[in-house]
Every structure is written in C-alpha cells, then in structure tokens.
C-alpha cells in the first residue's frame, strides 16, 4: 500500500529560482502517474525530492502514510530508473541487478533467483555476465529497469527512461514498459517531456509549468479539456488551435465574433461580454468543406501536408491561422476557399489574460 502525498512541496535553487512551487498532489496506490512538462518545469526536481535525492525547502512528502520528508533515499522503499541509466560500469549486469538486494543482505541463492527472474522479465538473461561498456543503449536501459524492479519497491520512479533511445526503439520499449508496469502493479511516477509518452503510459498525467502542477487528470481528460491554454498547446500534435474572438450580445444570445463569422457562445461567457476570449479547438475536431455550407466559418487553405493516415491543413481565418485534419481523399489545394465547422461540444474557451479555461462547449 503506497499512496504518495505531496503537501505544499517547494524547492528553491540559489535562493532565487523556484524549481518546484507549492505542489499539492496525491498519487493513489498502484497508480501510474506521469509528470509532464517542458524542460525546466521542475518535474525532475519534484521526482528527486520524492526519491530523497533533493531536500525540499518547504512542505511534506508522505509515502504509504509515512512522512518520509526527512528520510534518506535508502529508507523510503523506492527504486529509481535514471535518465542516464546509471548502470555501474565496474559491475556485471548480474551484479548491477543484484546490487540493491546485496545491500539488504539477502541470502545468495535468493539473490540469484530474483536476479534471474528480473532478467527474464526484461529479456536480459544472455547478458548477465557482461559489463555496461559491452551493452547497447537499449540493453543498458533494461538493466536500469531490472535493477529497480528487482527491489520490489512500493514506489517506482522513472526519470525520462526512454529519452536516450532512438525513435524506433522508444516505440517498442514504451509498450513493453507499459505491460511490465501493469504486471508489477506498483505505484509508479514517470517523468517525461514527451506528451505522447505521457498520454500512452499514464493512468493520470500531471502537467507542470514553472514549478507548479497546472492540471492533473486522466490522459484523455487532460487532452480533451485542457485547464489552461498552455496545457492545450503543450499536449497534442499538432497543438490545440487558439483563435482570438470578441464576445458580443447579451444573455440568451451570446456570440463570439471570428472575422466575419459569429459563433454561438455558451452562457458562461456572459461575464466576458465586450472582451476578447480564446477559442480552443483541436485539429481533428474541425470539419472542412470545399463548398459553401450555412453557418460555417469561411477560411482559405494555406498549406497542405499529407501525413499518410490523414492530411494536415493550415487554414487562414481572417488574420489568424489554425490547423485541421481531414481524410486523405479531401480535395485540398493551396489558396482554395474552405468552410469550417468546429464540433460544438469540443469548443473550449479561455481567458487570454489568465489563460484559464472559462467554459466548454
């Protein structure tokens, strides 16, 4: 049973830089939580504090109901996979995996049994006698994972474990890792800057920016309803479109003006009447036609990018650009007129000043 509770965790470097700023987050037992954010957002620092490698300036950290804030890493019942893998170069693969068990003074036969089992799990059995220098990047990564899971920790921490692999290997390993972690059924925290990794792996994703958790939720929820325009533009490829528009009209008949077009707006925007708002819409939630459709937004095609499974269009609405997806047989051509119909329930509204979500639908 290892629920992780972060209560107001704060870390400042050099008395100035707030790396982690008052983070409040609870990770449920057996949950796979991904910390996602651009580099420098504090996600690695937060993980290092959970590991005990960094000491917070403020706040408390509890693992499994036990306050571990003042405990060194070895007393926290955690295991960690480092971004660099940190495979000990002076030890064989076997001894690397056995390292933690030996520190626990486990009986030799027991160590051998566990190491073998872990090696089978990550397909390393043929390499147990090798040294780090004789391994490929992918094999090293497996050693790092095996070395962590063999400890059977109550919390597994992974710091960008796939970022040093080449693209193809990363795809394979991602699926393997997901399967492995599901089998282990351990509370897991996974740090990454890769939003696709975050979506594909996590039970929940916590998006961080400038030391704060901006939003947390299931991958689909975070993708579908970004809490801020930052989250929307960070998650998804292409990022969510944001169009500026002015709120017009009054109660009952609220509209947002987008160029020549006026879009029906939810009642929640009433408070913003007369002001600008940001309309967020994802590329796959816009329907496009080449002929005039009533109530559609008139636009012009600028760029057409065939991506195999679909087309990616860049369209111009007034003086604003947006991206949308169409089927590959869509008759798109640069400079051709275009009529766009965003799916009404996929519209997200943001305050351009605070970047917070105001309303959905």
């Amino acid at each position, binding site marked *: 049973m290892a629920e992780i509770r972060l209560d107001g965790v704060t870390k400042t470097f050099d008395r100035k830089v707030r790396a982690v700023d008052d983070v409040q987050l609870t990770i449920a037992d057996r949950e796979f939580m991904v910390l996602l954010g651009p580099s420098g957002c504090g996600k690695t620092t937060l993980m290092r504090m959970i590991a005990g*490698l960094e*000491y917070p300036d403020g706040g408390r950290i509890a693992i499994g109901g036990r306050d571990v804030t*003042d405990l*060194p*890493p070895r007393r926290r019942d955690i295991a960690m996979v480092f971004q660099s893998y940190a495979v000990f170069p002076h030890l064989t693969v076997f001894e690397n995996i056995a390292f933690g068990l030996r520190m626990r003074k486990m009986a030799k036969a027991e160590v051998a049994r566990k190491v073998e089992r872990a090696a089978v799990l990550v397909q390393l059995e043929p390499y147990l006698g090798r040294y780090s220098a004789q391994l490929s990047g992918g094999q090293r990564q497996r050693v790092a994972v095996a070395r962590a899971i063999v400890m059977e920790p109550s919390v597994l921490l992974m710091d960008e474990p796939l970022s040093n692999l080449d693209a193809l290997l990363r795809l394979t390993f991602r699926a393997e890792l997901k399967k492995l972690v599901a089998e282990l059924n351990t509370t897991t925290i996974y740090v990454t800057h890769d939003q696709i990794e975050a979506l594909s792996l996590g039970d929940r994703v916590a998006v961080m920016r400038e030391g704060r958790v901006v939003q947390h939720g299931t991958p689909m929820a975070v993708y579908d309803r970004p809490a801020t325009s930052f989250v929307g533009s960070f998650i998804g490829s292409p990022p969510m479109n944001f169009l500026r528009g002015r709120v017009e009209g009054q109660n009952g008949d609220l509209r947002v003006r987008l160029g020549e077009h006026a879009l029906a707006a939810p009642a929640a925007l009433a408070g913003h009447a007369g002001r600008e708002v940001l309309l967020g819409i994802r590329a796959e939630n816009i329907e496009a036609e080449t002929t005039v459709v009533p109530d559609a937004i008139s636009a012009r095609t600028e760029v057409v990018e065939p991506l195999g499974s679909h087309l990616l269009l860049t369209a111009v609405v007034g003086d604003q650009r947006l991206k949308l997806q169409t089927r590959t047989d869509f008759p798109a051509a640069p400079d051709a007129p275009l009529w766009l119909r965003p799916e009404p329930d996929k519209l997200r509204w943001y305050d351009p000043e605070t970047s917070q979500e105001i309303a959905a639908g």
Partner: protein
Amino acid sequence: MTSHRLGWAPYALLLPSLAFLAIFFAVPMVSAFGLAFQDASGAWGLASIRRMLGDAQFREALLTTLVLIVAIIPVQFALALAMALVINAKLKGAGLWLYVYALPLGISDLAAGITFFAIFTERGWLNSGLEGLGLIERPFIFLNYQTPFWLIFAVVLAESWRATAIIMVNLVAGLQGIPRDYLEAADVFGATLWQKIRRVILPLLRPSIQVSLILRTILAFQAFAVVIALAGSGLTVLSSEAYRWYGEYRDPNVAAAYAAFILVLSVVSTLLFLWLLPVRREQVG
C-alpha cells in the same frame, strides 16, 4: 540526522586539508617574514634584511637568477610548443611521442644537474663529441667560474631539458581544447604554418601559456640543485644563497630574508604575467 541535507558536510571534508595547510603553509609563511625582520638575538628590525642586501653575493645571485629566467623561459617555450604541435599532429605512435617528451617530468633538478655535469665536464661527453668531430684539439673547460657564459649555458640547457615537459603537457592539454575547425578554417584561408601558429594557435592557447609562464617562473626562482651540481660555487642564485645561509652560516634570519625576497619576486612576477597577458573570462575553461 539525514546526511543528504547537511550543509556542513563539505566543510567537514575540507577541514583536514585546511588545518594541515594552515599549520604547514600559512604559519611558516608568516614566520618566515617574522624571521626575516629579526636579528640573530631575536630583536625586531631590519638587521637581517640589511645583511642580505649588503652581502657580497646578493647582487650576483639576483642578477644570475634573473638572467637564467630570461634565458630559460623562451627556450623552453619554443621547445614545448614544437613538442606540443608534433603531438597534436597525431603522428604514428602519438602516445609514444607524448611519453618520451614527458619523461623529464619525473626527473629531479639534482639528477638533471649531474647528468649535464657528465656532459659538460672536462672529460665529458660534449668534449668527446667535439673532438670526435675535429672541432677542438683538446678538451675545453666549460664549467669554470671564469667563464660564466658557459656555466649559464649549461644550466639553461639542463633546465630546458628537465622542465620543458611541464610546459609541454600544459600546451598539449590546451591544444586539445582547440576545435579542429579553427585550424581547418585557417587552412581554407590559405594560412601558412607560421601564420597559423601566430594568429590562431597562440591566441587560443593564451590561458595555457599564462598559467605555464607563471608556474615556470615561480619554479625557476627555486631551482638551485641544477646550479650547484653544474657550477658548484662558480655560480650563485637566490635560493642557493638561502640554502648557504641556513646550511653553512647557520643564520636562519638571513636565510629567511632571502626566502621572503624570493616570495616577493614570485608574487611580483605572477602579477606581471597576469597584467601582461590578460586572459578574458570567456577564454578560461
């Protein structure tokens, strides 16, 4: 009680070194000046300094020391630069060349002095060679107090042999920090080797050169076993005067005055190099 959050850990690790250096570096430094400003009876004053300045050997020692430094350093730099360029050219067996050139790193000034004594002595290797070539008919006496030129020549050669390696290693380390692109860029612009050395290599090596110059000069103020081994009492330098005053005349005060004087010269020369060869911050590291 957790060590990972202890701010004092690094200080605890430094403490032994600091304590040791305080006892065996800082205290003797201060007391050297103390000794220099006392006379044999322990009374404070300039008596010992005055004795040093009034000593018949003082001027000669100072002069010889300076002459040696001025003569040795350019020779060493030329040799070291040549060695460093050879190593950087990545000849076959680059490791072997480096090892051979670096051999003298482990050689003491005393051993170097005696080795060159074997070469320069009357019945030594140099005379044998010169006679074998028919250049002289009977051995020439190089190491004679009446021919200080040859004494200094021998010392310069011995010191160049012994201590070039230190500069060479510095320069090689510095050269390895110069991206090959720069030199290739110079090639594209048709630079000759000499132009490349002058306009690209030397300016980029400036930090290494500055450090080497400072180091070499400080060490040159201390070199005395080479001088004693080669010239006996025919040549005197500041540090051999310090040695003589302590060892032969049993006068630690005047010896300390010499030592303090050497320190002052070392500091002055260091500052001089820092001033003459300013290294901009971005050039470091």
